[in-house]
């Protein structure tokens, strides 16, 4: 029998009609989210305040975070870490920065009090960006911004392609060696949706880190933002970062 193009195309069309619903079904099965019953996403919008002037570099936050969120103990996996800046003469484009084991063990004495420089600590964590470059690039949408202002990762869906790790300007993401999926600070989403604060904020002895709810009119954050000189990290990246720093030196990157 001679089969022409017409017959071939009709056959191919039939095949497509049969397979398309199957694909749609698979997609529908892949969806499905967990929703906390008593918690209303629409009522909250989360961020954090970090007060550089209050941070003493004790590393409590790093330890609390690793314990709370099962972050691997290796010195290159962190959801939050603390950096120590030292600037000779008070200003430099090339500050000296260290973060031994991410600040997990605190900081050994390195700079003498009264030397010609200034030293301070900078706690870092995911900035929960409102226009996050990491969620933009995820090929399957496994990382996403929630309506209440957190940037989360669905580790049952993440491919482990690491594109988001490349796209984060702040170095906040890593690939978890056990799950082979990306991991990052989720603002202790399992805690804050139950009315608790984050593990790092709870562990901070000086109140240098504070979880804030920008949608709550009674949250002291509004007063704080009005009365302090606030900066975010790398503002030129225009990521809509929601970790607000008080007393951030211009040399910090």
């Amino acid at each position, binding site marked *: 029998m001679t*089969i022409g193009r017409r017959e071939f195309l009709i056959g191919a069309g039939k095949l497509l009609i049969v397979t398309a619903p199957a694909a749609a079904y698979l997609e529908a099965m*892949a969806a499905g989210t967990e929703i906390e019953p008593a918690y209303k996403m629409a009522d909250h919008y989360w961020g954090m305040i970090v007060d550089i002037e209050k941070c003493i570099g004790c590393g409590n936050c790093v330890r609390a975070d690793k314990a709370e969120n099962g972050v691997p103990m290796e010195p290159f996996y962190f959801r939050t870490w603390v950096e120590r800046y030292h600037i000779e003469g008070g200003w430099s484009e090339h500050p000296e920065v260290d973060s031994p084991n991410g600040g997990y063990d605190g900081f050994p004495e390195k700079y003498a009090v009264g030397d010609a420089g200034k030293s301070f600590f900078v706690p870092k964590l995911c900035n929960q960006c409102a226009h996050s470059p990491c969620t933009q690039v995820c090929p399957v949408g496994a990382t996403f911004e929630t309506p209440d202002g957190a940037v989360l990762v669905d580790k049952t*869906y*993440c491919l482990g392609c690491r594109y988001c790790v*490349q796209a984060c300007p702040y170095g906040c993401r890593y690939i978890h060696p056990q799950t082979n999926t990306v991991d990052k600070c989720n603002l202790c989403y399992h805690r804050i949706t139950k009315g608790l604060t984050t593990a790092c904020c709870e562990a901070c002895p000086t109140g240098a880190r504070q979880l804030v709810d920008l949608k709550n009119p009674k949250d002291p954050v509004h007063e704080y933002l009005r009365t302090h000189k606030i900066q975010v990290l790398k503002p030129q990246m225009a990521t809509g970062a929601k970790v607000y720093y008080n007393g951030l030196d211009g040399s910090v990157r």
Partner: protein
Amino acid sequence: MQESLLQAVQGYMYPNEIELQWSILIVLYPFTTGLVAGAFILASLERVFNVQAVKPTYRLALLTALAFLLVAPLPLQLHLGHPERSLEMYLTPHTTSAMAMFGFIYLWYLMAVLLVEIWLDYRKEIVLLSRSTTGWIGKIYKVLTLGVDNISEGSLKVDDRVGRFITIIGIPSAFLLHGYVGFIFGSIKANPWWSTPVMPIVFLFSAIVSGIALVLLMYMATCFLKGIEIDMPCVDTIARYLLYAFLIDFSIELMDLIHRIYEADESFQSLDFMVHTRLYTSQILIQIVFGTIVPIGFLAFTQLVKLSEGARKGIYVLAGTLTLIGIFAMRWNVVIGGQLFSKSFLGYTTYKMAFATKEGLLPAIVLLLLPFVILWGLVKLLPPWHEEPAANA
């Protein structure tokens, strides 16, 4: 491992940056897709722009493109933390992701352009072979006919017209395929080494350069292996196109370089230091000097001075080989180089390549040789030099 990772760091890197994310496998990805796009564009010269001189390489170029295209997604697949989930890119693509579009552009290029063009071009032979060959190879030909066995004069004429149309669609598709690979890197604003709007253009022209060089070498190698006389007007023409493409490619890269040096933005000192230290061998020596300036010099020399056939052949082989090494180095410097400095611009690390691991040198070598094995099979199944005597006449 932990110690060696930490020791590789000089200055300060964000802790999560210490482990490199993208390995040599991701270097292979733009390298192989570049070869595909370049080989296809060379093939389309004959079909669309009627450059008759390159006709002997037309089918070989298409098969080369196919062989490399089939391998292109494998390094990505191997690299994924969860390769079993890769189908999700097709089922639930995230529309703002440049990477999510890869699957679609890849499929479009494979299914709608390359396979159709090859099939149409070979259809007559496939049908004839399916009639004359027995055994399981005969069955393969039967399957390849896709059940269409009408090879009347009129039908073949339609094939030719459709084939030409597909090639015309194919050229922007090839541009898209590789320009898009450049966009994957060029659109990452967090990384100043990658983030430039010329990245897609640089990738595109370097792709054309590498594809032309590959087909030139493949053609000369197949002639050598089959004991066929090399068609000198053909290789002379290809070498000339290689030179032109190379000049455009190098000019754009130079423009980018000069712009970066002159503008000297916040990342400049960091990147400059990197190029002068960790990337000096792979960037300055291998990519720019031996992989670009030397082959351009050789190719330009053949244009200026009348050389014997033997000398020209030797120069083409040398220039082609250096070109492929140079373009590979370029991919390496983009992918690996982009991860050797901290986004804090305060520190650097080194890439230590493993050997027999999932993302080591061994799988990379296997993946680089695999297209040649596939090409060998394709050439056995669909001999590209079937019509050559007529084409040479």
